[in-house]
């Protein structure tokens, strides 16, 4: 019975060996044997070195002491661990804030690079302030020209000139405004008494 089983095993093994894929695998393994040998020898050397180091208590002590000295400034206290855990707990919220900040920063960066949008905004602002600056420029121009002319004029102002001036629409407008101011002040004063 046992012999039969053994025979069946051998038959299966031979059948496997007749498989071309198995044959190809064996061939590849044989080709790679020199490399496999090198790898095994290297591993053996490494293992021997590790065993030797583990046995060398003096070197190990010195190594750990130096590592401890170097790590001393970064020693993690219990407080640090608690803080780290608290920080981990807040991470989802922090992530949201950082993401929002990142978006703002990216938007600002994009805008800084986008010359066309900068020019567009500049032109828009100019468009809104232009009517105001135009009015100011006009007023300054009128003032300057009037100042220059008045400085050039030497002759005295006659009563006829004054009469002509009074009929000027701009003067009339100003006088009407002055008249109204006087009226309003008068009315307010009467009410307050």
């Amino acid at each position, binding site marked *: 019975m046992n012999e039969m089983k053994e025979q069946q095993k051998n038959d299966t093994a031979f059948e496997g060996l007749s498989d071309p894929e198995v044959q190809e695998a064996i061939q590849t393994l044989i080709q790679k044997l020199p490399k496999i040998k090198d790898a095994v020898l290297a591993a053996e050397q490494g293992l021997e070195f590790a065993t030797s180091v583990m046995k060398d208590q003096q070197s190990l002590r010195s190594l750990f002491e130096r590592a401890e000295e170097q790590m001393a400034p970064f020693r993690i206290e219990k407080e640090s661990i608690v803080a780290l855990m608290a920080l981990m707990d807040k991470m989802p919220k922090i992530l949201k804030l950082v993401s929002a900040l990142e978006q703002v920063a990216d938007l600002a960066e*994009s805008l800084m690079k986008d010359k066309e949008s900068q020019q*567009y905004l500049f032109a828009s602002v100019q468009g*809104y302030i232009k009517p105001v600056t135009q009015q100011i420029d006009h007023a300054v121009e009128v003032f300057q020209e009037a100042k220059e002319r008045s400085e050039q004029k030497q002759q005295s102002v006659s009563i006829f000139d004054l009469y002509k001036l009074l009929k000027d629409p701009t003067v009339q407008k100003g006088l009407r405004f002055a008249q109204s101011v006087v009226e309003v002040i008068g009315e307010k004063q009467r009410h307050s008494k």
Partner: protein
Amino acid sequence: MANQVHYTVAIVGAGTAGISVAARLARASKQLKGNIVIIDPASKHYYQPLWTLVGGGAAKKEDSEREMSSLIPEGVDWMQDAVTSFQPEQNQLQTQAGTTVTYDYLVVAAGLHIHWDGIKGLKDALGKDGVCSNYSYESVDSTWEAIQSFKGGTAIFTHPNSPVKCGGAPQKIMYLADDYFRKSGVRKQSEVIFASAKSVIFDVKKYADTLDQVVKRKGIQTKYKRNLIEVRADVKEAVFENLDTKEQEVIKYDLLHVTPIMKAPDFLKESSLTDQGGWVDVDPYTLQHKTYPNVFGLGDCANLPTSKTGAAIRKQAPVVENNLLALMRDEPLTAHYNGYTSCPLVTGYNKLVLAEFDYNQNPQETFPFDQSKERFSMYVMKKDMLPVVYWNGMLKGLM
């Protein structure tokens, strides 16, 4: 020999939706960098919301145009080619140049098609003798020219019987024109008509109430359920169909601003990705395709029952990003889009009503004040801030 390439994510369309999703995916997953492709033949990209202001002479059209190459996100490949067909069962698509692109995930963001031929006589009349339209980069200048040269008479502004990008845009240009006509002193000898295929001025009552007041204040005549079907440029006549009675009505014009018919792109219609109307058939909340789970759709080409705007895409893009990444990780799709859309309704130079609402047409306002009131601050936001936010925030996947 036909070329074949494979990407983890293929995105069809480099418009607002395509670039936003690509930028978001590249930012969210480092592994996806170099594995995302955007397919689009266009060499230029346009910020179309600015065209209302360009047509009204309040902005320069050059500010709405940028080179496509400058906007493709880092870590994303751009295939400058047109998609011709889809085989979603095989996870692949074909391009005009003969390339087969296979993908693990597909995002369809192909926009919509302006059907200039949909109104008889429009194509030939456009840009001449007072016929104008804000709906293309080439024709938008014609609107400002027509408004400036208008010397009185009848000015008609139309809204077609089709979905349009930004439902409020057809009337925004009318309000600007009305303001300009008053400034130039021709408004008294003019009649301004808003001929719309819709039955109300705006779908959301809160904002419609304000706009009805604006129309009344400006003395604009509204003609609802009127669909422009023909432009007779030689006799300056616009032919409308009354959608209730089916009768035709002819109105003489001196200025005619046309909002053209818009439809789904033909190459999409012919695929199995779309519904009967030709729009990409997606779940309105997850934006995942109803038949092909590895396909997502967003933007103007999707069959979402909301107004097709850039603001809507701003809310859709994060949903597609999150759900696509969840699908990659075999996790449930938890990101939901509620139909949010926004329409900055310019009601004049320096005035704007900022409409924001969802699928149920409930206002979803951002600011802590009543946005149905006309405000200068909101006008400044649209004109000056939103373009900058668009180029540097939305297209970078940041907002």
